[in-house]
């Protein structure tokens, strides 16, 4: 497959960069959008050398929602595919004490991603084509004591993606929801993740490419997560309430 440009929002993210490589390998030009985009020069050169596709860097802050329309205008060309890898895990305990910290998590996982994808959705809709990929999380499937601030923002984001897909059905624009479980990235660095349940960024990237090609709606990255989350979703609340998972 070779095709139009792919925009990676959160272009420094480990998952986002892995996706960039995957799409580049399939022949797509890449647009990396991130804060402090200049610092992505090495990533840019690397992708250009490996895959021989052009890569451009774009300054982008998901929280600066007022700038989003200008940001999209400033792209050399409106992308065919946009992948939103923006996210902040935050510290749950700190979020419980400090609402500014919780708010940053909410805005970074919900407000920012929703704002930029809405902007792109309208442009894609006008054009009548395109694919939007939102990286949400299994954490949004049910609120748990250990990470419900992050989880609730991801729940909101998942609901947004589902609604957007519904709205754009028939418009030529497709929306993919990606629900990774644990992924070994900068975000989870130093955490004790169960190896069997943990994916590599490259696995997520492969799942994204497949989902885009096959126009899938909701993808889990490791199939076992679909099962794990089905169980977790179905535990009755009186029992769930007392569980520590």
């Amino acid at each position, binding site marked *: 497959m070779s095709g139009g440009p792919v925009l990676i929002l959160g272009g420094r993210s480990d998952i986002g960069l892995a996706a960039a490589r995957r799409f580049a390998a399939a022949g797509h030009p890449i647009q990396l959008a991130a804060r402090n985009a200049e610092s992505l020069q090495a990533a840019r*050169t690397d992708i250009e050398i*490996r895959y021989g596709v052009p890569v451009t860097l774009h300054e982008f802050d998901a929280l600066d929602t007022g700038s989003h329309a200008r940001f999209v205008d400033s792209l050399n060309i409106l992308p065919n595919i946009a992948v939103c890898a923006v996210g902040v895990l935050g510290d749950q305990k700190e979020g419980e004490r400090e609402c500014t910290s919780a708010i940053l998590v909410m805005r970074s996982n919900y407000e920012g991603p929703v704002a930029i994808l809405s902007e792109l959705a309208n442009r894609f809709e006008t054009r009548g084509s395109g694919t939007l990929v939102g990286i949400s999380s299994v954490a949004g499937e049910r609120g748990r004591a250990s990470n419900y601030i992050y989880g609730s923002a991801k729940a909101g984001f998942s609901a947004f993606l589902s609604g957007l897909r519904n709205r754009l059905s028939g418009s030529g624009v497709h929306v993919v929801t990606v629900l990774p479980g644990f992924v070994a990235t900068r975000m989870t660095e*130093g955490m004790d993740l169960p190896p069997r349940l943990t994916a590599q960024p490259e696995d997520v990237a492969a799942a994204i490419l497949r989902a885009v090609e096959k126009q899938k709606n909701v993808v889990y990255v490791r199939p076992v997560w679909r099962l794990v989350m089905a169980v977790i979703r179905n535990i009755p609340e009186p029992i769930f309430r007392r569980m520590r998972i």
Partner: protein
Amino acid sequence: MPRMTMLSGWGRFPKLHCKVSRPRTEADLRNLLAEGSLIARGNGRAYGDSALNTRATADMRQFNHMLAFDAETGQLTAEAGVMLGDVIAAFLPRGWFPPVTPGTQFVTLGGMIAADVHGKNHHRHGSFGNFVDWIDVMQADGEILRCSPDDNRDLFEWTIGGMGLTGIILRAAFRLSRVETGWVKQTVIPTADLESTMTAFEAAQDATYSVAWIDCLSSGTRLGRSLLLLGEHASRGELSAAAQANPFAILNRRKLAIAFDMPSILHAVPLARAFNALHHWRGAAGTRSRLVDWYRYFYPLDAIPGWNRLYGREGLIQFQCVLPLDRSRQGLHVLLGAIAASRQAPLLAVLKRMGRQDSRFSFPMEGYTLALDFPATPAVLELLKRLDRIAIEHGGRFYLAKDSRMAAATFRASEPRLPEFLAMRAEKGRAQAFASAQSERLGL
């Protein structure tokens, strides 16, 4: 954020609890150095404890950017954590191949330089270090030195083959080689005994690639019976019409995991029987050559992910020594004799003629290198001590990238270059800053 992790080399012996960090920037590395001694780790394909340090192991795989490529000269500049397999994936389609490759593509550039790896073309092209133009090495104080034959020459020469003990390799420039296709013309020559194997090797000095699989169960008059495999990069004209259309592609990649060459056959059934069958078959077929794609030719073992686990719990030991040319015939005789007498059959036994090499601390020298895979049982460990002695008696030395169990005294006896290596280590705080479980075991 470092984590305690159970870590080992490819042989899964020994296993040590190590504090592992995944640095991403030079500043991360400086912070680590400030905390105490560390060892850089690539993709962990050294068999033993070369890339283990219980206090601090720095996983270099986040340094994985390709930085520049010169399409005229084939010079690639890349960070140390870039994988050889990624280099092939990016450049073989453009007609470039690594000038030297080990038997697996899952190694990093840093690991290839630090072990100064050799391939089946050592007798013609030497080791990987021959193709390295410069290296950036971080020293104990955090300073980064660009080393080349022109600048910081000593550090350049020590770092190639220095097993991570001269500093942290950050990036390097090396030259790829031109190839017309991704295919290799392979010729298989069955030989009856050690004498004829070595004669065949000497007669094949012009072949680009050469390596022999030895049947270690044969003894007596058949001692050293082998299959000698020669290879040449195929030209476009030698390919079938179908392959010519896409000369760098692998046909039937899907079948790779199943249709698998010699090593799997050797593992799957008793070695002797398989070997005999192949030997006869090849003998009957004569020494015909056939085309093999690069993946099957260079990396047959890579088709089975995690094959090192097949050897069971105790793990896997590889013994690899090289004997100087004038002592090779006699030394190999004694080595193979000792193996046959011990009834500890190696799972894999590979012989290779090496060409001239004169380096500070690298493994290769002109002569014959023998590599043997064993399960890490107590009986095998005893046998290996005997093999150590035989190798030393014949002027041989040992490959650190394969070692997991040698005694310090053994290594010292094999290595006249050690005092100079230690003097280099004593400079600029290197011995305090860079240490592996292996360097501590061997007193490097």
